[in-house]
């Protein structure tokens, strides 16, 4: 069973395709499948609610109308990755316990297994952060602010999704190394050690960018992932070929043939996955169409309809971006071999994934848009009063540094009491003083300390009045 799973993953990587329809026990990160009742309960962190993973948009949910499906989609996506990461973590633990194979060779390969295990904590933290933000979002009785908080999960979710994919690829390399060390003595451990080091270095910058959870770095890393997966696929193939050739040269032609045959056999029997021809079509997105079952490449399901639906919600709500989603679909489709292009998928597929004029508009004017990316960042909750906010629950994932917005200069000046036409006279105070004054007046009037949610509601009200979209980005602590 173990060997079978191992080879299965080998083939998955060899074909550069990380997505299978409903293969139980598969450990790939992105393909969304509705979870059944058999799922471990610990995946559901929600308080007092057992219907977290299933029942998306079943209707009849009162309050927070438009945010509810988005909240579910974020939770589903986070749970997807959490399940996958758990599987990888278990597999890594088994590898770490090995005495032979990767556990042999005087233990020099241990560092590579550790490199994999070292990624698990930050992946779990990112997912924990996303879940914490979803919890906070659910408590805020303001639909705009709720969506704002859900959008804050985006970089964490994207980092976890792609980090999980990369870790999954690394696990495939570890498994390959394990097999080669055990069965191909002709391929020297030194050479394999160098190979693994090279692959690790290849992945390092992307892993670091993802682990940073910085929105801009994560987005950039995610969109270059198809290219990286292509390189990794190539590396994987060349190590495997190297091992086979070494076996042949050392007179183990039979064993080498079996080695390759086994892969082919498993691939046809278990997966029916067409291998990418060596010269894959050079145009990105070729052959991808939306069918009733999801996105198809020929007769093969690339991503399920449920996954498409989940992603569509996340894209529409601005939680994750179209280029990032396109990158994920390309990786799933195995279209990783071609050089980096604009990452465009066919229009029909993009539309199914939520791309549209609205979303493109949001992108143009949003955080990654041309002009706005240089617009100055501004703390919505004044930094000068950090301790005041900390006392009221703005800590950790809800730290005030996570609540920054980019403002165009004209708007910024106006909010700061500059601008023109008497605004300066009407509001001599800056936004900071204005918002603090409202919060203090509210506490005085209420005769008690405001809760975090009450503060967020008051802030949401002011942001709406000032026409500031609730697209929060992390800012620097001063």
């Amino acid at each position, binding site marked *: 069973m173990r060997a079978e799973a191992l080879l299965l993953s080998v083939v998955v990587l060899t074909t550069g395709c990380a997505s299978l329809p409903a293969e139980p026990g598969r450990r790939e990160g992105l393909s969304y499948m509705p979870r059944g009742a058999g799922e471990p309960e610990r995946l559901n962190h929600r308080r007092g609610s057992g219907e977290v993973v299933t029942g998306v948009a079943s209707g009849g949910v009162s309050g927070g109308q438009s945010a509810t499906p988005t909240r579910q989609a974020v939770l589903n996506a986070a749970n997807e990755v959490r399940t996958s990461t758990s599987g990888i973590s278990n597999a890594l633990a088994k590898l770490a316990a090995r005495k032979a194979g990767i556990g042999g060779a005087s233990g020099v390969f241990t560092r590579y297994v550790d490199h994999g295990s070292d990624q698990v904590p930050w992946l779990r933290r990112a997912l924990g952060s996303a879940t914490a933000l979803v919890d906070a979002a659910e408590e805020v009785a303001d639909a705009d602010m709720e969506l704002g908080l859900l959008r804050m999960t985006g970089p964490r979710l994207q980092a976890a999704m792609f980090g999980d994919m990369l870790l999954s690829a690394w696990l495939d390399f570890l498994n390959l190394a394990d097999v080669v060390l055990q069965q191909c003595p002709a391929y020297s451990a030194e050479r394999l050690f160098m190979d693994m080091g090279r692959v690790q270095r290849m992945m390092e910058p992307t892993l670091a960018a993802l682990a940073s959870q910085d929105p801009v770095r994560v987005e950039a890393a995610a969109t270059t992932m198809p290219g990286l997966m292509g390189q990794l696929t190539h590396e994987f193939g060349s190590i495997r070929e190297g091992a086979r050739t070494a076996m042949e040269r050392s007179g183990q032609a039979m064993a080498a043939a079996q080695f390759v045959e086994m892969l082919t056999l498993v691939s046809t029997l278990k997966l029916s996955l067409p291998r990418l021809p060596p010269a894959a079509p050079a145009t990105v997105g070729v052959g991808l169409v939306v069918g009733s079952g999801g996105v198809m490449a020929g007769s093969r399901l690339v991503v399920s309809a449920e996954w498409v639906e989940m992603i569509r919600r996340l894209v529409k709500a601005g939680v994750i971006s179209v280029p990032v989603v396109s990158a994920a679909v390309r990786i799933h489709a195995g279209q990783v071999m071609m050089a980096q292009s604009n990452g465009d998928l066919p229009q029909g597929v993009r539309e199914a994934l939520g791309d549209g004029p609205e979303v493109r508009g949001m992108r143009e004017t949003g955080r990654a848009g041309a002009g706005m990316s240089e617009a100055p960042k501004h703390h919505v909750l004044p930094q000068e009063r950090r301790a005041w906010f900390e006392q009221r629950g703005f800590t950790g994932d809800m730290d005030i540094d996570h609540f920054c917005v980019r403002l165009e200069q004209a708007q910024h000046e106006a909010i700061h009491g500059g601008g023109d036409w008497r605004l300066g006279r*009407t509001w001599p105070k800056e936004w900071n003083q204005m918002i603090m004054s409202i919060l203090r007046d509210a506490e005085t009037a209420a005769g008690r300390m405001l809760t975090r949610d009450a503060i967020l509601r008051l802030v949401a009200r002011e942001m*709406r009045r000032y026409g500031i979209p609730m697209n929060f980005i992390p800012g620097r602590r001063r």
Partner: protein
Amino acid sequence: MSDGRSWQGNWPARMYERVRERGFTSLTAFADAHPTLPLVELAEELGKDSFSAVQVFSGLVDEAERSCQVTRLTRGQLVRELSESFPDGWPVVFDDEARLEAAMTLASWIGFTPETHKERARQVTAALLARPPPPGWRPLGPDDELLRTLLPDEEA
């Protein structure tokens, strides 16, 4: 308004153009025609995503200062705040939750009160919370009787 475009160029001129297009000679007249509309929705009435609520309000303050009607504008703004938070009128059960809601609404109102009138707005807030108005109270404009008692005109 989501991208700061509303603040660019001569936006007051743009705003008055919209007001005239809708058949009003002043922002105040336009606002009076929609007395219970929350400020954000009032701004939307001048065109989707064209102006922010704070721009519309600054125009209203400008006019009110010229015509010595800042107190009236302040009452009018409270009407809009209350209609946003309590569309069905003052809560029947004035429990802790309702009290917090009212406190937040009134604090927002103080925030949207010109500097000259902030202290009076704070006094009105304290008075309203100390002696809550009758359940279901829903002022329909700046000339509401209870509001005029709480915040009488001085300028006139």
